[in-house]
């Protein structure tokens, strides 16, 4: 039985037209009434109204279309026997009968008669769409729309919900300003770039005790040895445009360093230096004219967790008999490899060597244990280095032993782990302590000078040809004439109506006549175009009255819908051409564009925005932030890496046409070094992201959305994990199964829940005691428990934090253990539900409106078409683009749904 619980029914206008269903016959009505009277009205009538549900009125005004959500829910609750919740319970026969009647009613809809493409409210461009459109139109990624208020998520859960995009009071002034700045930036390309150079030692330093440094070869500068040390000075920028920051710098020690450049307290650039030798690195930024504050800082390495204190740290003082203690502990905690040495010839000496290495390795571990988190970093580093040195023989030994036994190295690791479970975890914990104690692999930036040049044509995000053409048209009246109508047509994303450019050109002439220059007149007209509603809204202008209620969208309208769906921007030349040739009227034409566009790098807009908003992690690092004291390692770098990881899996699924179920159970992953360290996986050999195949051991926790830090961090509170948040995430976002609202008096667990005697699991047991809570939480909590092995940042919990059991048992009897179990359960048993949930969300995202009851068959058809292939990504997008609501628009937003009265 499908669960279509996400459809909202707005019955705005009620007219009785042709009936869309057969209606409810007397006999059936009686049967439902009887059942309700026996088992349901006790709680769901006028007196009690449990859960705000009144089945009596629902029966009186039986409306299978208007109340669709309610009746689907009733059907589901009875089918899964969630309702009635306690005795008296219906007999098997009674269940069968009621289900048969309800199913018939629910499915008895003449979908053909109800066919309706919906109406997308006049779509205003979102802030992102505006910025991208201006970028593609003018060839410069000026992002002048940054001054607009950010768009909030609408009822669809996405920022492109067109009903939720308004233009209020002061907005037009902002649109004007944004347009004017964009135009001025084009003019700046005329100017000869200016250049200013600052020697670091001449800048002002906030830490007045800090002095300039002398470098080899007699140079001078500043080495920024703490995050707080700031070099600053005022800079005078002549015009809107892009400026190149060039810095000569090196790294002081340990490894690469990153310098941060701020203008007016906003980071505009990052400069990375790799080694001690000074190199010249550049970055570009868009700046506004005037005097600004430039500030230079060093980006600090990710900080250690668990509330490290400031410089006034007192280090651990070791006891007198430390050596002795270490010896005793080493012997006590020594792990061992227990293999039947007689089993295979040649095994005995290997095992004996192995155990020998163990004892030499255990000692430095014990030293680290003694020093603890407050140990002197130098000491900790020393012992860590011993460990690294002494563990070297293990690598060779593992391979030899494994090969001797005829098993894989992974299998051998398994055996070792099973024999020494506590030691393995223990050693990892101790290593972490040592590694976090000092900044690893990141250094301090030593700056010699910094130079600013501009305005320049930027190297990143620009289309020089387009920008130059626009710039020339704005400066030269002769170029203006041919350029403007084409520009206007691209801006409005359609061929112009007859003489549509005339009013604009008339204003241009008028301004010229008043004595202003061509440049001034042209600028004002272009600013007007970028402020016009024909630009700011994607008007799917419908032909005049008399052309029917349902309109087939034309080629250009389809091109626009396509490009804003997949690229958040206007159609490119290839798409425009296909539209002009009429190719988008055919399925082949549309499919060809979909395939091309999904593989274009502009589709990253889709791969970032859709999952980020659907799965709720887009706000990570902005409004959703783990507690800074407990989790200082959550910095910009980690936040970006987390999001990129998820984005890349989505990209792979859609671009490579993989099954979307891979989003749950992928065996590969996209990792960079930061994430590798975060997850405890082997580092990847280079900067940036690499696609890795996960080993079976790694797949215990990683692989697919459930093991991704982006999702796991977004489903935690700032201070602790939350099985409820994670359970709701799986249920609501992945399975499309909305849990109800909690009752008004439902409490909330405090921040220290799970740390005050009882485990989180035990604290949540209260959900079982109260029937009102259990109804929803019996479904939610088990899903969350499966993910309790991850901490707030998505790392695997260590030591005592790891819950003793991550088993979840659902009301339907299915149970699973840990994330691997949950993952397998979802992939094997709930794949269809996941696909349905994704298709519903994707359709709403593509359309920019909420789904209505008449979209139900559309979703069903898409699923039917793509199920045989395993719900492949590109196939789904194709199906959506070819669907009725995507290719058509209804003239009116009202539903005009008839109500069905119960027949006598």
């Amino acid at each position, binding site marked *: 039985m499908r669960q279509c619980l996400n459809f909202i029914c707005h019955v705005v206008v009620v007219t009785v037209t042709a009936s869309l269903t057969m209606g409810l016959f007397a006999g059936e009505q009686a049967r439902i009434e009887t059942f309700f009277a026996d088992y349901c009205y006790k709680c769901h009538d006028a007196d009690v109204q449990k859960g705000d549900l009144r089945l009596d009125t629902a029966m009186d005004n039986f409306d299978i279309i208007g109340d669709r959500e309610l009746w689907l829910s009733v059907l589901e609750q009875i089918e899964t026997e969630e309702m009635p919740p306690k005795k008296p319970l219906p007999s098997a026969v009674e269940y069968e009968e009621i289900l048969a009647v309800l199913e018939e009613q629910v499915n008895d809809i003449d979908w053909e008669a109800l066919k309706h493409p919906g109406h997308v*409210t006049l779509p205003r461009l979102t802030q992102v769409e505006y910025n991208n459109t201006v970028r593609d139109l003018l060839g410069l990624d000026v992002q002048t729309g940054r001054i607009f208020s950010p768009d909030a998520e609408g009822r669809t859960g996405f920022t492109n919900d067109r009903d939720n995009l308004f*233009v*209020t009071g002061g907005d037009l002034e902002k649109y004007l300003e944004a347009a004017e700045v964009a135009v001025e930036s084009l003019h700046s390309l005329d100017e000869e770039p200016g250049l200013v150079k600052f020697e670091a030692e001449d800048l*002002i330093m906030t830490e007045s005790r800090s002095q300039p440094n002398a470098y080899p070869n007699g140079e001078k500068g500043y080495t920024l040895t703490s995050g707080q040390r700031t070099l600053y000075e005022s800079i005078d920028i002549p015009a809107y445009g892009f400026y190149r920051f060039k810095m000569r710098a090196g790294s002081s020690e340990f490894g690469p360093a990153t310098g941060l450049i701020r203008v007016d307290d906003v980071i505009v650039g990052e400069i990375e230096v790799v080694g001690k030798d000074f190199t010249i690195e550049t970055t570009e930024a868009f700046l506004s004219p005037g*005097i600004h504050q430039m500030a230079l800082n060093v980006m600090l390495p990710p900080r250690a967790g668990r509330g490290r204190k400031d410089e006034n740290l007192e280090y651990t003082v070791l006891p007198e008999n430390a050596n002795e203690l270490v010896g005793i502990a080493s012997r006590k905690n020594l792990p061992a490899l227990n293999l039947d040495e007689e089993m295979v010839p040649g095994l005995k000496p290997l095992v004996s060597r192995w155990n020998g290495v163990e004892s030499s390795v255990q000692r430095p571990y014990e030293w680290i244990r003694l020093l603890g988190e407050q140990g002197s970093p130098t000491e900790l580093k020393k012992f860590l280095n011993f460990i690294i040195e002494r563990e070297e023989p293990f690598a060779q030994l593992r391979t030899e032993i494994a090969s001797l036994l005829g098993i894989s190295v992974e299998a051998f690791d398994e055996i070792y782990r099973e024999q020494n479970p506590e030691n393995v975890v223990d050693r990892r914990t101790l290593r972490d302590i040592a590694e976090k104690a000092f900044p690893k692999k990141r250094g301090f930036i030593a700056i010699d000078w910094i130079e600013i040049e501009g305005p320049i044509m930027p190297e990143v995000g620009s289309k020089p040809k387009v920008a130059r053409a626009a710039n020339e048209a704005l400066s030269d009246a002769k170029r203006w004439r041919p350029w403007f109508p084409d520009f206007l047509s691209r801006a409005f994303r359609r061929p112009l109506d007859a003489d549509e450019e005339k009013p604009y050109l008339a204003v241009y002439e008028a301004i010229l006549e008043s004595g202003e220059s061509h440049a001034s007149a042209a600028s*004002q*007209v272009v600013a007007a175009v970028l402020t016009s509603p024909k630009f700011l809204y994607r008007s799917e202008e419908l032909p005049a009255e008399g052309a029917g209620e349902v309109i087939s969208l034309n080629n250009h309208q389809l091109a626009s819908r396509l490009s804003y769906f997949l690229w958040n921007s206007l159609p490119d030349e290839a798409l425009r051409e296909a539209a002009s040739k009429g190719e988008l009227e055919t399925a082949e034409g549309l499919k060809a564009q979909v395939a091309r566009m999904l593989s274009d790098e502009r589709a990253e807009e889709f791969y970032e925005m859709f999952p980020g908003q659907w799965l709720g992690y887009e706000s990570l690092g902005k409004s959703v932030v783990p507690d*800074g004291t407990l989790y200082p390692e959550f910095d910009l770098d980690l936040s970006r890496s987390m999001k990129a990881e998820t984005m890349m899996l989505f990209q792979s699924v859609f671009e490579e046409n993989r099954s979307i179920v891979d989003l749950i159970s992928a065996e590969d992953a996209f990792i960079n070094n930061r994430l590798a360290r975060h997850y405890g996986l082997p580092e990847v050999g280079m900067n940036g992201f690499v696609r890795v195949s996960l080993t079976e051991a790694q797949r215990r926790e990683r692989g697919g959305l459930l093991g991704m830090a982006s999702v796991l961090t977004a489903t935690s509170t700032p201070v602790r994990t939350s099985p409820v948040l994670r359970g709701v995430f799986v249920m609501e976002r992945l399975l499309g199964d909305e849990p109800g609202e909690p009752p008004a008096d439902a409490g909330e667990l405090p921040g220290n829940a799970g740390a005050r005697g009882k485990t989180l699991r035990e604290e949540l047991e209260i959900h079982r005691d109260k029937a009102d809570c259990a109804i929803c939480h019996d479904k939610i909590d088990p899903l969350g428990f499966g993910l309790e092995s991850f901490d707030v940042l998505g790392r695997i919990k260590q030591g005592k934090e790891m819950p003793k059991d991550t088993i979840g048992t659902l009301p339907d009897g299915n149970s699973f253990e840990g994330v691997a179990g949950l993952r397998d359960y979802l992939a094997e048993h709930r794949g269809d539900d996941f696909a349905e949930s994704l298709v519903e969300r994707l359709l709403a995202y593509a359309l920019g409106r909420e789904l209505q009851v008449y979209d139900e068959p559309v979703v069903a058809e898409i699923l039917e078409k793509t199920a045989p292939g395993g719900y492949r990504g590109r196939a789904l997008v194709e199906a959506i683009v070819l669907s009725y609501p995507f290719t058509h628009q209804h003239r009116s*937003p009202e539903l005009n749904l008839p109500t069905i009265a119960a027949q006598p």
Partner: protein
Amino acid sequence: MTRRPLSRRTLLKGLGASLALPPLEMMQARDVSTAPQRICSIFQPNGVYPKAWDVTGVGRDFQLSPILSPLQDLMGDFSVVSGLDNLGRGHVQLTGSFLTGKQITHQRNGVSLDQQIAAKVGHATPLSSVILGTEPPRQGIASGEPIAYANTVSWSSETTRVSPEINPQVAFDRLFRDRTGPEARKEALRRRSVLDLVLDDAKSLRRKAGSVDQAKLDEYLDSVREVEVRLEKTMNPPEPEWTPTTTPEKMKRPGPGLPRDKQTHLRLMMDLMLLAFWTDTTRVGTLMTAHGFSRQNFSFLDGVTSDHHGMSHHKEKDDLVAEYTRVSQWYVENVAYLLGRMKAVKEGDGTLLSNSVVLYGSGMKDGNGHIKDDLPLVVAGQAGGKIRTGEHVRCEKGTPHSNLLHTLGQALGLENETFNGVSTGVVDQLVV
């Protein structure tokens, strides 16, 4: 002598200050009781050494302390307020609460006193408020909150802090730029032609649209109308409610860059603040004498060798206490300079000082230990007759300092029941 054509900048330099003023010769001196109230909040970081700050005697009969001794000549024009407690811990929170009475948590604060007043009276002046400072934000985290947040005491919303302008030339330009002169009118005319075009587009779209879409276009049209109203104001500026009764002196436009000398920098900002009030460019001013977590090097003062933050953690060592005291005294010397200049500006029967209220203090008492109780606070000026000065006002132990914020807010016309929901009353002795 070669003649150089005047660049636009030079034009501003010569005419800017006077362009901002209406033709005074034609103005009659207005009734002084209508002189507007001003509020100026001045923040000193890192606290003070208690024994060197605390005054002796309560009420009208009190003796100045070493740190406050520079205010000798202004006795009667200010009150010292003691016994008020701040909340929070560490430099970021103790700075952020100075004008809000609330503790910054997860980067959220309350709306500050100056911004609340600006919201009420700001419409009457070209700028609703002016926030000036001398140090840029520093990075890093202290007690879980970003150190950058300690660069201001001014918050316009729970999540928006207003950073001070620290460049004197930029501050000057923003305060005294041409708002209704030929440049501004030209810009207004330019926008007018743009508006006409887009209005036509909107109307034509609206004709073809269904009802829901028409509603969206109506939103757009309303927004266009708002811009038209604003342009109208530029083309035909309304009569100002009040004009200064004395001619403000012309101030030379500051040179580019940041002054290297701390005293020059601070005095420049104070001069700008004075002129802003004098010309009624704004009635709400806030001055960060330094960053809330300032490590300013004070070795330019005799006998001082350390940075301000370092000496504030004096651990009762005599030499650091002496430096710490000297620095606080130096700050008060500069405050005395500003108050003196304000007193010298006649406004009818009163002075700019008597029509204003100036709040000076720090978010902590002894920097050694970040003590948050019994804040060092001075209230100067009578706010046009609403505030009583000339006393040492000692508040009951445990009184939140938001009570002072509430008192000052009420004196300037705020009509809230409490201040940010945290004050428990007013400081009666300050109220006339």
